[in-house]
């Protein structure tokens, strides 16, 4: 019972929502963690991260003359 006399809703639906929200949260964090780990591994292996449209500059850029 709270101060103003309102009882918190303890309907079992909140329990189910809670497990769902925690589950989705854990999955999202795990996905981000996995992408991070794979990125670190790929960068450590020296994988080519240049875009498919990358071209070498054959002449110096404007500011380098």
């Amino acid at each position: 019972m709270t101060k103003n006399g309102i009882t918190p809703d303890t309907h079992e639906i909140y329990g189910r929502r809670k497990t769902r929200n925690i589950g989705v949260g854990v999955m999202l964090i795990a996905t981000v963690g996995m992408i991070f780990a794979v990125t670190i591994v790929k960068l450590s292996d020296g994988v080519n991260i240049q875009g498919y449209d990358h071209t070498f500059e054959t002449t110096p850029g404007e500011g380098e003359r």
Partner: protein
Amino acid sequence: MTDAAWISGEPAREAEFRDYYELLKPRVMRLVVFTAAVGLLTAPGMVHPVIAFATILCIAVGAGASGALNMWWDADIDAVMGRTAKRPIPSGRVSGDEALAIGLALSGFSVAFLFLFGNALAAGLLAFTIFFYAVIYTMWLKRATPQNIVIGGAAGAFPPVIGWAVVTGNTSIEPWLMFGLIFMWTPPHFWALALFRNDDYTDAAVPMLPVIKGTRATRNQVWWYSLALAPVAILPAFTQVGGPVYLIAATVLNVMFLSGAWKIYRRNDEGARADKFKVEKKFFGFSILYLFLHFVLLLLEAALKAVGLVISGWPVIL
């Protein structure tokens, strides 16, 4: 939950996280993870353990996604069959729309991530596997022909090929023999199940072989497919991934498998009903162990090679 509930697509109650997890058919996923891992670990070369873990996870999620799409499409017949009536959609825990959304989203994510983590061939094979299981098998063959699981079995056979492709970027005879092993194993495995679950499939009007052609024809087919499976299962012994341990153990396993299939072939329905399908149930249970042990043997051969325990002059004919 009434039948009207899943037809309307509205769940009877809000789902818990484990209800969504069940949509992904965790038991099937375990087999997929294992066979894909064997394909990956027996392939020549190696990938970083993080990449190996991430790519196998992608393959597992892709398989799970196709399972969710299968449950979405099959909710009507799942509700009729005792074996599947407690699945999340027919039991009212997840709506059909949710299952479809999860299936499509996870299909897209798994293929995209496998492309980024692995390579284009592996991602393409996974996309094809999902398409094959969800569309070719579930939507088309399953309700159209008693050969449904013969052709549909290909979907479950792809994971070792995908695992191999992650490492090598291509495929060769070894992963395709692993494919052949699962592909040829699927019909006798499922027809043994169908023999003692015939009423379920009849009620749901799924044209399984015993429903359409009768149990006599099914018993014959279990035997002939088991006979055809044996050479496919033993042949990997004479490839780069095989060896004497595999040859000996696979031969024993196939003799046992054929013995079970022969008993099913020799029986009739009166005999089966008398002992409550004891032989068929035993064969079905053993068939799972049979497949599992073949892949364990391939891992064992890879481990033996890794520590230098190889017989020089072993005939590698393929």
